[in-house]
Protein backbone atom coordinates (compact mmCIF):
# COMPACT_ATOMS: atom_id res chain seq x y z
CA UNK A 1 0.00 0.00 0.00
CA UNK A 2 2.73 2.41 1.00
CA UNK A 3 4.67 1.40 -2.06
CA UNK A 4 1.72 2.18 -4.29
CA UNK A 5 1.24 5.51 -2.55
CA UNK A 6 4.91 6.37 -3.03
CA UNK A 7 4.69 5.41 -6.69
CA UNK A 8 1.63 7.60 -7.10
CA UNK A 9 3.37 10.55 -5.40
CA UNK A 10 6.43 10.03 -7.56
CA UNK A 11 4.38 9.94 -10.77
CA UNK A 12 2.39 12.97 -9.71
CA UNK A 13 5.46 15.06 -8.88
CA UNK A 14 7.17 14.03 -12.12
CA UNK A 15 4.03 15.12 -13.96
CA UNK A 16 4.17 18.46 -12.16
CA UNK A 17 7.81 18.92 -13.08
CA UNK A 18 7.03 18.15 -16.71
CA UNK A 19 4.14 20.57 -16.69
CA UNK A 20 6.48 23.37 -15.62
CA UNK A 21 7.28 25.50 -18.63
CA UNK A 22 10.88 26.24 -19.59
CA UNK A 23 11.90 29.61 -18.17
CA UNK A 24 11.76 32.49 -20.62
CA UNK A 25 12.45 36.20 -20.18
CA UNK A 26 8.80 37.00 -19.53
CA UNK A 27 9.66 39.46 -16.76
CA UNK A 28 11.82 41.50 -19.09
CA UNK A 29 8.94 41.71 -21.53
CA UNK A 30 6.44 42.60 -18.82
CA UNK A 31 8.65 45.40 -17.53
CA UNK A 32 9.10 46.72 -21.05
CA UNK A 33 12.88 46.53 -20.72
CA UNK A 34 13.02 44.46 -23.90
CA UNK A 35 12.47 47.76 -25.74
CA UNK A 36 15.81 48.95 -24.40
CA UNK A 37 17.52 45.96 -26.01
CA UNK A 38 15.65 46.56 -29.27
CA UNK A 39 16.62 50.24 -29.20
CA UNK A 40 20.30 49.40 -28.66
CA UNK A 41 20.39 46.76 -31.40
CA UNK A 42 18.51 48.99 -33.84
CA UNK A 43 20.83 51.92 -33.08
CA UNK A 44 23.93 49.83 -33.69
CA UNK A 45 22.57 48.52 -36.96
CA UNK A 46 21.35 51.94 -38.14
CA UNK A 47 24.83 53.35 -37.46
CA UNK A 48 26.47 50.57 -39.49
CA UNK A 49 23.98 51.09 -42.34
CA UNK A 50 24.47 54.89 -42.23
CA UNK A 51 28.24 54.39 -42.42
CA UNK A 52 27.77 52.15 -45.44
CA UNK A 53 25.61 54.84 -47.07
CA UNK A 54 28.37 57.42 -46.46
CA UNK A 55 30.95 55.11 -48.06
CA UNK A 56 28.57 54.44 -50.95
CA UNK A 57 28.21 58.17 -51.58
CA UNK A 58 31.96 58.76 -51.40
CA UNK A 59 32.58 56.04 -53.98
CA UNK A 60 29.90 57.58 -56.19
CA UNK A 61 31.60 60.96 -55.89
CA UNK A 62 34.93 59.45 -56.94
CA UNK A 63 33.26 57.67 -59.86
CA UNK A 64 31.79 60.94 -61.09
CA UNK A 65 35.11 62.72 -60.64
CA UNK A 66 36.93 60.13 -62.74
CA UNK A 67 34.17 60.21 -65.33
CA UNK A 68 34.49 64.00 -65.63
CA UNK A 69 38.27 63.73 -65.86
CA UNK A 70 38.03 61.21 -68.68
CA UNK A 71 35.67 63.24 -70.86
Amino acid at each position, binding site marked *: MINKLLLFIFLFTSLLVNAQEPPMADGMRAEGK*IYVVIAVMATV*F*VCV*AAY*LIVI*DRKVKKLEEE*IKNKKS
Partner: protein
Amino acid sequence: MGVESSEFTENPPKNSPNYEQPTTNCHMKNWYKILSVLLILYTIFWGLMGPVPRLDILNETIRNVYYHVPIWFAMLFMMSVSIWYAIRYLLSSDTVFETKSFNAAKVGFFFSIPGIITGCFWAKYTWGTYWTFQDPKLNGVAIGILIYLAYFILRNSIPDELKRARISAVYNIFAYVMLIVFIMILPRLTDSLHPGNGGNPAFGKYDLDNNMRMVFYPAIIGWILFSCWVFEIKNRIAQLNSILNDQ
Protein backbone atom coordinates in the same frame (compact mmCIF):
# COMPACT_ATOMS: atom_id res chain seq x y z
CA MET B 1 40.38 64.26 -76.57
CA GLY B 2 38.55 64.52 -79.85
CA VAL B 3 34.95 64.04 -80.68
CA GLU B 4 35.55 60.41 -81.61
CA SER B 5 37.08 59.43 -78.28
CA SER B 6 34.33 61.07 -76.27
CA GLU B 7 31.80 59.27 -78.40
CA PHE B 8 33.63 56.06 -77.70
CA THR B 9 33.59 56.59 -73.93
CA GLU B 10 29.90 57.33 -74.07
CA ASN B 11 28.93 54.19 -75.96
CA PRO B 12 31.37 51.36 -75.46
CA PRO B 13 30.08 47.93 -76.49
CA LYS B 14 28.13 46.33 -73.70
CA ASN B 15 30.13 43.12 -73.68
CA SER B 16 33.51 44.83 -73.35
CA PRO B 17 35.24 44.66 -69.95
CA ASN B 18 35.56 48.45 -69.86
CA TYR B 19 31.84 48.93 -70.13
CA GLU B 20 30.67 51.06 -67.22
CA GLN B 21 27.13 50.79 -66.02
CA PRO B 22 25.27 54.07 -66.35
CA THR B 23 25.15 55.75 -62.94
CA THR B 24 22.37 58.23 -63.70
CA ASN B 25 19.38 56.09 -62.74
CA CYS B 26 20.83 55.13 -59.37
CA HIS B 27 17.52 55.37 -57.49
CA MET B 28 16.25 52.31 -59.31
CA LYS B 29 19.51 50.51 -58.57
CA ASN B 30 19.45 51.16 -54.82
CA TRP B 31 16.12 49.51 -54.02
CA TYR B 32 17.73 46.39 -52.56
CA LYS B 33 19.90 48.40 -50.18
CA ILE B 34 16.84 50.11 -48.69
CA LEU B 35 15.01 46.79 -48.59
CA SER B 36 17.89 45.08 -46.78
CA VAL B 37 18.02 47.76 -44.05
CA LEU B 38 14.24 47.67 -43.60
CA LEU B 39 14.16 43.86 -43.44
CA ILE B 40 16.97 43.71 -40.88
CA LEU B 41 15.35 46.41 -38.73
CA TYR B 42 12.10 44.43 -38.91
CA THR B 43 13.90 41.29 -37.74
CA ILE B 44 15.58 43.18 -34.89
CA PHE B 45 12.18 44.34 -33.63
CA TRP B 46 10.00 41.33 -34.34
CA GLY B 47 12.81 38.87 -33.62
CA LEU B 48 12.81 40.01 -29.98
CA MET B 49 9.08 40.71 -29.61
CA GLY B 50 7.57 37.87 -31.60
CA PRO B 51 6.35 34.64 -30.02
CA VAL B 52 8.75 31.68 -29.96
CA PRO B 53 8.23 28.09 -28.79
CA ARG B 54 9.17 27.47 -25.14
CA LEU B 55 11.92 24.86 -25.17
CA ASP B 56 14.26 23.51 -22.52
CA ILE B 57 17.98 24.35 -22.76
CA LEU B 58 17.37 26.73 -25.68
CA ASN B 59 14.94 29.02 -23.80
CA GLU B 60 15.24 32.57 -25.19
CA THR B 61 18.42 31.76 -27.11
CA ILE B 62 16.23 30.27 -29.83
CA ARG B 63 15.99 33.85 -31.07
CA ASN B 64 19.61 33.57 -32.17
CA VAL B 65 18.18 31.75 -35.18
CA TYR B 66 17.21 35.19 -36.51
CA TYR B 67 20.71 36.64 -36.22
CA HIS B 68 23.30 33.85 -36.23
CA VAL B 69 21.92 31.67 -39.04
CA PRO B 70 21.22 34.43 -41.63
CA ILE B 71 24.84 35.62 -41.25
CA TRP B 72 25.97 32.15 -42.36
CA PHE B 73 23.46 32.20 -45.21
CA ALA B 74 24.93 35.51 -46.37
CA MET B 75 28.44 34.03 -46.12
CA LEU B 76 27.44 30.95 -48.12
CA PHE B 77 25.67 33.14 -50.69
CA MET B 78 28.77 35.29 -51.15
CA MET B 79 30.98 32.21 -51.57
CA SER B 80 28.52 30.97 -54.22
CA VAL B 81 28.77 34.34 -55.97
CA SER B 82 32.54 33.98 -55.74
CA ILE B 83 32.65 30.59 -57.47
CA TRP B 84 30.11 31.83 -60.05
CA TYR B 85 32.43 34.68 -61.06
CA ALA B 86 35.48 32.38 -60.93
CA ILE B 87 33.82 30.07 -63.47
CA ARG B 88 32.77 33.04 -65.58
CA TYR B 89 36.38 34.23 -65.56
CA LEU B 90 37.69 30.83 -66.63
CA LEU B 91 35.15 30.73 -69.47
CA SER B 92 35.75 34.28 -70.68
CA SER B 93 39.31 35.18 -69.52
CA ASP B 94 37.98 38.59 -68.50
CA THR B 95 39.89 39.61 -65.34
CA VAL B 96 37.01 41.84 -64.20
CA PHE B 97 35.12 38.67 -63.30
CA GLU B 98 38.10 37.35 -61.35
CA THR B 99 38.30 40.59 -59.33
CA LYS B 100 34.59 40.24 -58.55
CA SER B 101 35.16 36.65 -57.48
CA PHE B 102 37.93 37.78 -55.13
CA ASN B 103 35.73 40.56 -53.70
CA ALA B 104 32.85 38.16 -53.09
CA ALA B 105 35.17 35.78 -51.23
CA LYS B 106 36.39 38.69 -49.09
CA VAL B 107 32.83 39.72 -48.19
CA GLY B 108 31.93 36.10 -47.42
CA PHE B 109 35.01 35.76 -45.24
CA PHE B 110 34.06 38.94 -43.40
CA PHE B 111 30.57 37.55 -42.67
CA SER B 112 32.03 34.32 -41.32
CA ILE B 113 33.72 36.21 -38.45
CA PRO B 114 30.50 37.41 -36.73
CA GLY B 115 29.02 34.02 -37.61
CA ILE B 116 31.73 32.18 -35.67
CA ILE B 117 31.68 34.59 -32.71
CA THR B 118 27.90 34.52 -32.32
CA GLY B 119 28.03 30.73 -32.68
CA CYS B 120 30.56 30.55 -29.84
CA PHE B 121 28.29 32.53 -27.51
CA TRP B 122 25.29 30.43 -28.40
CA ALA B 123 27.26 27.21 -27.92
CA LYS B 124 28.42 28.38 -24.47
CA TYR B 125 24.85 28.73 -23.21
CA THR B 126 23.36 25.65 -24.82
CA TRP B 127 26.15 23.09 -25.24
CA GLY B 128 28.16 24.43 -22.28
CA THR B 129 31.34 25.29 -24.15
CA TYR B 130 32.58 27.95 -26.57
CA TRP B 131 34.14 25.40 -28.89
CA THR B 132 33.72 21.68 -29.16
CA PHE B 133 35.60 19.23 -31.31
CA GLN B 134 32.64 16.87 -31.26
CA ASP B 135 30.64 18.98 -33.67
CA PRO B 136 31.76 18.43 -37.27
CA LYS B 137 30.06 21.61 -38.46
CA LEU B 138 32.11 23.85 -36.17
CA ASN B 139 35.39 22.28 -37.18
CA GLY B 140 34.31 21.97 -40.80
CA VAL B 141 33.58 25.66 -41.02
CA ALA B 142 36.90 26.44 -39.34
CA ILE B 143 38.72 24.38 -41.97
CA GLY B 144 36.65 25.99 -44.73
CA ILE B 145 37.58 29.47 -43.52
CA LEU B 146 41.26 28.47 -43.36
CA ILE B 147 41.02 27.23 -46.97
CA TYR B 148 39.71 30.66 -48.00
CA LEU B 149 42.45 32.32 -45.95
CA ALA B 150 44.94 30.30 -48.00
CA TYR B 151 43.14 31.55 -51.12
CA PHE B 152 43.75 35.18 -50.12
CA ILE B 153 47.42 34.50 -49.37
CA LEU B 154 47.85 32.58 -52.62
CA ARG B 155 46.25 35.35 -54.64
CA ASN B 156 48.39 38.06 -53.06
CA SER B 157 51.60 36.08 -53.55
CA ILE B 158 51.48 35.91 -57.36
CA PRO B 159 52.77 39.13 -58.95
CA ASP B 160 51.88 38.30 -62.56
CA GLU B 161 48.31 39.50 -63.16
CA LEU B 162 47.08 36.87 -65.60
CA LYS B 163 48.73 33.99 -63.80
CA ARG B 164 47.30 35.23 -60.50
CA ALA B 165 43.79 35.44 -61.92
CA ARG B 166 43.88 31.95 -63.45
CA ILE B 167 45.41 30.16 -60.45
CA SER B 168 43.15 31.89 -57.92
CA ALA B 169 40.03 31.18 -59.97
CA VAL B 170 40.88 27.49 -60.13
CA TYR B 171 41.71 27.43 -56.42
CA ASN B 172 38.45 29.24 -55.69
CA ILE B 173 36.45 26.39 -57.22
CA PHE B 174 38.41 23.91 -55.10
CA ALA B 175 37.84 26.01 -51.96
CA TYR B 176 34.08 26.21 -52.55
CA VAL B 177 33.78 22.47 -53.09
CA MET B 178 35.74 21.85 -49.88
CA LEU B 179 33.55 24.34 -47.98
CA ILE B 180 30.36 22.60 -49.14
CA VAL B 181 31.80 19.20 -48.24
CA PHE B 182 32.87 20.38 -44.80
CA ILE B 183 29.75 22.30 -43.75
CA MET B 184 26.92 20.68 -45.71
CA ILE B 185 27.87 17.05 -46.37
CA LEU B 186 30.19 15.79 -43.61
CA PRO B 187 28.04 17.09 -40.68
CA ARG B 188 25.09 15.16 -42.11
CA LEU B 189 27.04 11.92 -42.23
CA THR B 190 28.26 11.90 -38.62
CA ASP B 191 26.86 12.87 -35.24
CA SER B 192 26.45 16.60 -34.89
CA LEU B 193 25.14 18.93 -32.25
CA HIS B 194 23.74 21.24 -34.89
CA PRO B 195 20.06 20.81 -35.75
CA GLY B 196 19.36 19.11 -39.05
CA ASN B 197 22.60 17.13 -39.01
CA GLY B 198 23.49 13.61 -37.98
CA GLY B 199 19.93 12.57 -37.21
CA ASN B 200 19.12 15.64 -35.12
CA PRO B 201 15.81 17.22 -36.03
CA ALA B 202 16.20 20.34 -38.13
CA PHE B 203 14.83 23.65 -36.99
CA GLY B 204 12.30 23.46 -39.80
CA LYS B 205 10.81 20.25 -38.47
CA TYR B 206 9.90 20.89 -34.84
CA ASP B 207 11.37 24.09 -33.51
CA LEU B 208 10.76 26.53 -36.33
CA ASP B 209 7.05 27.23 -36.20
CA ASN B 210 5.16 29.56 -38.50
CA ASN B 211 5.68 32.55 -36.21
CA MET B 212 9.43 32.08 -36.43
CA ARG B 213 9.34 31.64 -40.20
CA MET B 214 7.82 35.11 -40.46
CA VAL B 215 11.06 36.51 -39.04
CA PHE B 216 13.61 33.90 -40.14
CA TYR B 217 13.02 34.13 -43.90
CA PRO B 218 13.02 37.97 -44.03
CA ALA B 219 16.23 37.88 -41.96
CA ILE B 220 17.90 35.60 -44.54
CA ILE B 221 16.80 37.82 -47.44
CA GLY B 222 17.80 40.98 -45.54
CA TRP B 223 21.31 39.79 -44.71
CA ILE B 224 21.92 38.39 -48.21
CA LEU B 225 20.88 41.75 -49.73
CA PHE B 226 23.09 43.52 -47.18
CA SER B 227 26.07 41.40 -48.23
CA CYS B 228 25.26 42.23 -51.87
CA TRP B 229 25.45 45.91 -50.97
CA VAL B 230 28.93 45.53 -49.44
CA PHE B 231 29.95 43.43 -52.46
CA GLU B 232 28.76 46.15 -54.86
CA ILE B 233 30.76 48.86 -53.05
CA LYS B 234 33.87 46.67 -53.10
CA ASN B 235 33.45 46.10 -56.84
CA ARG B 236 33.07 49.81 -57.51
CA ILE B 237 36.22 50.59 -55.52
CA ALA B 238 38.07 47.86 -57.46
CA GLN B 239 36.87 49.41 -60.72
CA LEU B 240 38.08 52.85 -59.62
CA ASN B 241 41.42 51.31 -58.74
CA SER B 242 41.78 49.66 -62.13
CA ILE B 243 40.91 52.93 -63.89
CA LEU B 244 43.55 54.76 -61.82
CA ASN B 245 46.12 52.05 -62.59
CA ASP B 246 45.44 52.27 -66.32
CA GLN B 247 46.11 56.02 -66.39
